[in-house]
């Protein structure tokens, strides 16, 4: 023991010290497992496999810190015995990590230039053990002799037998019982748990993949057909470290059975999307589809609830960051599409999927615009706007008087309504579109809705002035686009540009709101293409929002591709969008230094959800 002390002092403080008693513990375990092959020892092995691997890693680290085999054997006299026993434990050798660590420990005991008899013996022993492991055929001698006559090599034979075993076990799983009645009766489902346990070391074994898939996807009608937790954990960590690939349905089942693997998947999707902000809307959609999460959410309500909860927390933490909002919107749209494909009955299950949202808003928001006649949209949106307005007014009244709990409840309701609105952003886009063709008297509810969407809280009671700005912006846009002659009215242009450039001193309206409106006007207003393009170009140029405008155009195009109900003449609209995009690209090529300054000013104020260093081109600060 005293020999360990000076060594520990030389080691880095990050490594835990080596405890010889721990080696004794594991050696005793390994001996016990090797002695008897009963269901209990097998269970015990699977239970301890993960910790054993951690211990082997620790041993390896310590062995690497020592300089010779002699030193290693002196410090850890039981090491040879321990490794030797593990070599003959199939659970350790079947598992990819276990096998790797074990072999690395063995190499650690090998000396390139043995200096004494101990090291020479160790070398010989290692060669012998490895030769035996790879080529010894005692158990199968008769079989292999026969197979040789048939022209089948040992390696081929082992592989075929393994595949046959997997096939037999798969068949057994298919025959799960349906009886939930008599718990005392033995059913064939007991073997499902045992099989899943046996698969703990086999999660990275490619031949076992079909069996694992079958285990994950079996109907689970019987109480006894539960999968071992160790199995689910092993599978989850192998999948998240990308050591294995699973079939789609197997992944969905894994998430369904194992909460932590689902959370890992959602969090890694969020991290991936929010750090990789250069992707186009189309790329984001592909990324979401590839993650399999929308599909999984559509298949299991419980999966959706967990994912949604995580999104909700993120949204709250990042205070409504635009990238997060956009991700949530896109995710919801993918999810709702998957749901529709599965042909779930809609109205009944909405409550189960959105238990925290104000119930009266569920069906109105979740009904897609394409499911409603176009003439009804305006009325529908007016109703939505009014309902949301009522909700916020109730919250504000509650703020004044009433207990803390009613106040919190009020905030909660408003937040949930806003969260649902983000998820059903198709209506927000319809509102923007309708604004293009509205009369000034009809704008009110639509502008309120959009203002609420971008600024859900009324901190400092700024909503009133925000609404004023919104109306101003709309007025400017309307008059700019209605004018058929050029040159363009300078004052209108300048006012618009001012609105788009936020000043830190006064509370302002989200530039993205105004930009969205601007782009929609450019695309949908009945104006000549050149006229629209010129207006767009001028405004965007002066406010330095070229990239952002291009982004909005791309999103609009994508949405039109999916939901072609917005326009009856989709071809013309697409051509128009393409033309406008070209205008913007040409502008970007000849970049304007003044514009870039404004651009930099805006970007400097951005916060991203995950990394503070990168400035995403498409997101703008949400100034409340």
């Amino acid at each position, binding site marked *: 023991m005293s020999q360990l002390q000076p060594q520990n002092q030389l080691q880095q403080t990050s490594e835990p010290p080596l405890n010889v008693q721990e080696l004794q513990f594991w050696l005793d375990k390994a001996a016990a497992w090797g002695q008897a092959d009963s269901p209990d020892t097998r269970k015990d092995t699977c239970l301890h496999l993960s910790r054993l691997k951690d211990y082997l890693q620790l041993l390896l680290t310590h062995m690497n810190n020592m300089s010779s085999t002699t030193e290693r054997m002196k410090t850890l006299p039981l090491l040879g015995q321990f490794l030797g026993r593990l070599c003959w434990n*199939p659970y350790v050798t*079947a598992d990819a990590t276990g096998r790797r660590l074990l072999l690395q420990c063995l*190499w650690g005991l090998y000396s390139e230039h043995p200096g004494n008899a101990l090291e020479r013996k160790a070398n010989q022993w290692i060669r012998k053990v*490895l030769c035996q492991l*790879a*080529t010894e055929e005692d158990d199968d001698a008769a079989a292999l*002799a026969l197979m*040789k006559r048939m022209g089948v090599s040992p*390696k081929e034979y082992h592989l075929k037998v393994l595949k046959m075993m997997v096939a037999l076990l798969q068949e057994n799983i298919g025959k799960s019982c349906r009886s939930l009645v008599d718990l005392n009766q033995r059913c064939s489902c007991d073997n499902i748990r045992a099989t899943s346990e046996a698969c703990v070391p086999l999660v990275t074994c*490619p031949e076992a993949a079909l069996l694992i898939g079958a285990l994950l996807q079996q109907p689970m009608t019987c109480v006894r057909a539960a999968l071992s937790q160790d199995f689910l954990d092993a599978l989850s960590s192998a999948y998240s470290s990308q050591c294995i690939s699973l079939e789609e349905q197997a992944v969905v089942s894994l998430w369904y059975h194992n909460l932590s693997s689902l959370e890992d998947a959602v969090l890694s999707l969020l991290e991936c999307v929010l750090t990789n902000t250069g992707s186009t809307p189309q790329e984001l959609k592909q990324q979401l589809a590839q993650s399999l999460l929308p599909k999984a959410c559509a298949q299991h309500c419980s999966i959706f609830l967990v994912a949604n909860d995580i999104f909700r927390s993120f949204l709250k933490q990042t205070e409504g960051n635009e990238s997060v909002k956009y991700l949530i919107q896109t995710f919801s749209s993918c999810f709702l599409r998957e749901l529709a494909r599965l042909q779930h009955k809609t109205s009944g299950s909405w409550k189960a999927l959105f238990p925290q949202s104000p119930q009266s808003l569920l069906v109105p928001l979740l009904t897609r615009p394409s499911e409603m006649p176009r003439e009804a949209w305006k009325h529908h949106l007016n109703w939505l706007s009014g309902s949301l307005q009522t909700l916020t007014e109730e919250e504000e009244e509650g703020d004044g008087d009433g207990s803390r709990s009613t106040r919190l409840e009020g905030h909660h309701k408003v937040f949930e309504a806003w969260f649902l609105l983000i998820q059903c952003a198709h209506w927000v886009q319809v509102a923007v579109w309708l604004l293009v063709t509205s009369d000034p008297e009809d704008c009110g509810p639509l502008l309120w809705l959009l203002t609420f969407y971008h600024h859900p809280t009324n901190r400092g009671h700024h909503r009133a002035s925000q609404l004023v700005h919104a109306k101003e912006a709309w007025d400017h846009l309307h008059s700019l686009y209605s004018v058929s002659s050029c040159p363009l009215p300078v004052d209108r242009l300048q006012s618009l540009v001012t609105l788009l450039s936020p000043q830190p001193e006064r509370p302002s309206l989200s530039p993205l709101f105004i930009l969205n409106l601007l782009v929609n006007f450019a695309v949908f207003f009945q104006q000549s293409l050149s006229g629209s393009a010129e207006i767009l170009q001028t405004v965007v140029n002066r406010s330095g929002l070229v990239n952002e405008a291009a982004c909005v155009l791309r999103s609009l195009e994508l949405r039109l591709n999916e939901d072609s109900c917005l326009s009856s003449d989709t071809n013309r609209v697409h051509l128009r969008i393409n033309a406008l995009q070209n205008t913007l690209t040409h502008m970007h090529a000849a970049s304007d230094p003044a514009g870039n300054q404004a651009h930099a000013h805006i970007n400097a104020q951005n916060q991203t959800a995950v990394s503070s260093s990168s400035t995403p081109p498409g997101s703008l600060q949400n100034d409340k």
Partner: protein
Amino acid sequence: MEAVLKNLSSTAELLAVASQSGAVAQWDKQTLSRAFHWARYCEHISSRFHNNSAIKGIMEKQLQFTNQSLRAAFPGYTDISFSDLSCCQHLLLVGLLKNPELPISIMKILFDTTSPVNNQQSDYQDVTGFCSHIIQCKSARKVLSPLTDLSAVGADVEVQGAMLMERLAALLSQESEACRTEHFLDSVLQGGEGAAGHFCLVIAAALLTTKISAAQTASQGFLLDWLQKKHSVLQLMCSALPTTLLIDLAKGHLQFRAAYCDVLKKWASDMEYSMSEGEWVQPSTNRTVSFKRLTEHFLALFESCPSLREDVENDLNALNISDGDFDVKGLSVWGDLLSALNK
């Protein structure tokens, strides 16, 4: 053809060098890959020509010739024959791992655990991790075997049965004379210690394969015909295999059922009444089954094939009558058998 023969010789030399020579100390990854590539080539040659007796003969001669010179060059050399070629990679591996001069770096390549497994039987297999994959496979088998041990015929025997069927089908499709296929089956029997007993189990598995094609039906038919002529094998099957298997075979194949009955009757007819034991016993030179066991066989057979009972009892009755039709125990094995069966 000459090129192929030359390649065979070269590979035999390669195997000798791998296992016997210190030259392996100079091997690197490329040499290793090439060596295994040649071994795979020989395996391919073996599977291509093992049904072609003419070419097989030429190759065998070439190998014998090469063996001679290699024996002279390497004192510890073991001859290789054509039949060894199907396991050429294994031979190479064993030779290398047992060779104390093999550099540890080569061993590390073979036991590498990082590369993903490539299961395709292609010529471009990477030799990295060759042993690691073998260990994974064997270990996975051991991990899963407690779960699959419940059936009478294990996965390993099923695979062997399937391979037997494949081989028979290949032989039958090529050979016009059935005797070559028969010779093949005969040679398997003589495989060595315990080979016959093991082969019985494999034959049972082969005959019990349910999902079969037309070719496999022909193979099963051939196998049954061959069994009819091999009384010793039939007897071994009936005494060594578990009753459940025998019953399944009897249910699946009329031919086997009839043969099974015949074996049982033969056993009975060879029995003598032993005064000291108070029971019918087989002659002391060949005690494989007791009277009680014989009765159990018959009863199990009747239970699964009820239509058989009447015919067999009639036969036994006729035999009993020919023995004198006495009602006393110990005089006629047939009478005693009938009474035991009808208890």
